């Protein structure tokens, strides 16, 4: 299951990852922190995506992960739109027969998502707004 949503549903992700041959399931949930880049006071975040390309890139990453680990089920869900501190913004999950494969593939997918999937985060502080990573 690969998709962009307004609101992350953890139970949906967990249900999708069920597989009779899977003994281990690794989930990563990224949430909005109240500080960023050494600066505190994040009050809101906006996530914007280039939607068709973001889905296509996530599918490419899923294919790479499946080529490398014996993954039974895989979930990559990213939220778009306005988010508050504590809100989940991304959920990555893999289920495998053995837990090491689940941890490794899940970490690979979130690391790669952050590098290449065309989604942008704008942080709203009390006093300014910043597109994260845009400038050196």
């Amino acid at each position: 299951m690969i998709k962009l949503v307004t609101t992350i549903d953890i139970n949906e992700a967990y249900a999708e990852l069920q597989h009779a041959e899977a003994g281990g399931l690794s989930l990563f949930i990224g949430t909005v922190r109240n500080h960023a880049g050494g600066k505190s006071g994040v009050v809101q975040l906006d996530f914007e995506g280039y939607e068709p390309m973001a889905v296509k890139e996530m599918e490419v990453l899923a294919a790479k992960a499946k080529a490398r680990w014996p993954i039974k089920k895989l979930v990559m869900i990213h939220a778009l739109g306005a988010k508050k501190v504590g809100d989940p913004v991304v959920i990555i999950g893999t289920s495998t027969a053995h837990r090491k494969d689940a941890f490794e593939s899940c970490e690979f997918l979130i690391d790669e998502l952050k590098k290449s999937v065309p989604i942008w985060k704008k942080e709203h502080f009390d006093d300014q707004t910043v597109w994260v990573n845009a400038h050196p």
Partner: protein
Amino acid sequence: MEIKLFGITKDIVGSDIISVPEDVHVGNVRELKSWLYIQYPPLKELSALAIAVEHTYAVDTTLLEKSNEIALIPPVSGG
């Protein structure tokens, strides 16, 4: 030729699209980037700037057709 804009590139250009004039010839990604940097100098200050063609990351030598879906991809920050 139209270029879709996202994130900070939208703020820099002040629009969510750039229309490359008919009389400007940009045959590949390298030529497009050169033209963009002249038109919108703040783009040069970004940490990186990629071009996507048909929803795929393109390289400098990727050829551009007028019918392609082309987009500017500033540094991503999802997750």
